């Protein structure tokens, strides 16, 4: 389990994280959500020792995480930054990663590269934005680490590759359970994957709950605009959308007495996120 205890991170005049407390348990898929500048990447960088906290401590399985090689070897993080020299070939980086991560599966990496159409003979600098993301995804999935951290994993990926990534992630997770932390803005796409949601706002944890609980926090009703408006009057509405004569309303609270003319579905995570993080 990764524990973040009272962590504050300052960058000169900016406080990115403020006395943050959060834990990431074993063998679960987490969604780390937040608006731009909320502190998601900073948190991931702290959890991988890429940044040093200004205050507070981080632990993995009870051991201090900062500057601890043994513990850091259990984590692999795919970050937005490419940490490899542009002049090095992808296949060479696979070999080097196997040196640092003994559980790195070279055959699996090669198979994934083939599935994604990644040419491993190319140099990192020759890859397009999308393929650079794919290269980092392949490295992370094949790393064999117990904690896989993804910071904007689908940056520059087309819909087909995004779908393939989600499928491969689930396949890897079911074959070899591990802790996955997905930090992304594409909430709708990962909503069905994640088991636990952590929302950060202004460097603080705003919400830290299982996805199941979040779905039960509210519901969405749809139907004819007049009927939805009439039924929703006086209720705690998070937001609404109109398409022609039809209306969709996201409501916070327990589901009860919904007329047969309206359809009720579980609460949309993205709508909740928008509502919670709007200033």
């Amino acid at each position, binding site marked *: 389990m990764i524990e973040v205890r009272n962590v504050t991170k300052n960058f000169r005049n900016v406080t*990115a994280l403020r006395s943050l407390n959060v834990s990431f348990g074993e063998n679960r898929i987490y969604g780390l959500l937040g608006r731009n500048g909320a502190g998601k990447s900073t948190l991931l*960088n702290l959890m991988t020792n890429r940044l040093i906290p200004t205050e507070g401590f981080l632990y993995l399985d009870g051991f201090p995480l900062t500057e601890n090689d043994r513990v850091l*070897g259990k984590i*692999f993080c795919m970050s937005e930054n490419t940490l490899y020299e542009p002049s090095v070939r992808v296949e060479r980086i696979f070999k*080097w990663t196997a*040196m*640092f991560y003994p559980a790195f599966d070279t055959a699996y990496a090669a198979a994934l590269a083939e599935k994604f159409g990644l040419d491993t003979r190319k140099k990192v600098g020759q890859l397009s934005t999308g393929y650079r993301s794919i290269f980092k995804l392949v490295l992370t999935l094949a790393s064999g680490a117990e904690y896989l951290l993804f910071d904007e994993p689908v940056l520059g990926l087309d819909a087909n590759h995004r779908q393939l990534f989600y499928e491969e992630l689930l396949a890897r997770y079911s074959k070899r359970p591990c802790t996955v932390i997905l930090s992304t803005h594409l909430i709708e796409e990962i909503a069905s994957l994640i088991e636990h949601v952590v929302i950060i706002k202004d460097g603080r944890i705003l919400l830290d709950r299982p996805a199941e609980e979040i779905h039960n926090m509210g519901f969405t009703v749809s139907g004819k605009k007049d009927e939805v408006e009439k039924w929703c009057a006086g209720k705690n509405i998070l937001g609404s959308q109109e398409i022609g004569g039809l209306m969709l309303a996201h409501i916070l609270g327990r589901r009860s007495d919904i007329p047969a003319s309206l359809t009720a579905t579980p609460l949309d995570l993205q709508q909740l996120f928008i509502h919670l993080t709007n200033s």
Partner: protein
Amino acid sequence: MKIKQMFLWQLKSSLPAFIIFFCIITALTTVLTIVFARNGNGTFNMAAASIGVFFLFVVGCASFAENLHIAFGNGVSRRTHFLSFLLFAAFSSALTAFVCVLIDMIPSLSPSTYIPLLTDTPGMQIFFYFTLNFGFMAFGYFLAGAYYRMNKAAKITVSIIIPAAAITCFVLIMNTAAPVGPEVQPLPLFLQWMLASIMNAALFWLLFAALFLFLGWLVTRRAGIRQQQPAG
């Protein structure tokens, strides 16, 4: 600790550069030795070992950011990254000193045109160049680390002030007609001591290396990932 892995990685990634450097220096030394031997006039020494010092300074400069990013990407701590650099610097300094002293022996195949740069035993020369290489590699590492940690304004300021101050000091020293005052007497005395023997010079460069390794550790111990956004 992943010192072995980091050391091997540095070795593998730097190997082509070292091979190319040694090949170029060997080829140049051989060609120039032949040219001087054929002409029959003038004396020649390639000073390959001295050229090696500049090469290792560049290697030291290149070692910081690249290695640190590899360390960050592969779950390696700053401490391990620094210790692996220390090992690699010692290894490559010794290797370069040994190979370059050997290369410097090529011109001696033409005794009529050969003039040695140092008259000490090869073993002593290797030790001296090892310390010199080590010192400059540590200096390069520190410079790269310091620049890595600085923001843009600090980089510009340092880039202007340090060369300007060095040039001003040099001009002032060169144009001072008056004899050196007692307050600066220790400096020439120290220089005299350093030049007295190759062993003294080697000791000086060892101290120089120790100083810049210490400063190098100071810039490493809290270095973070670059291109970092303030948050998000």
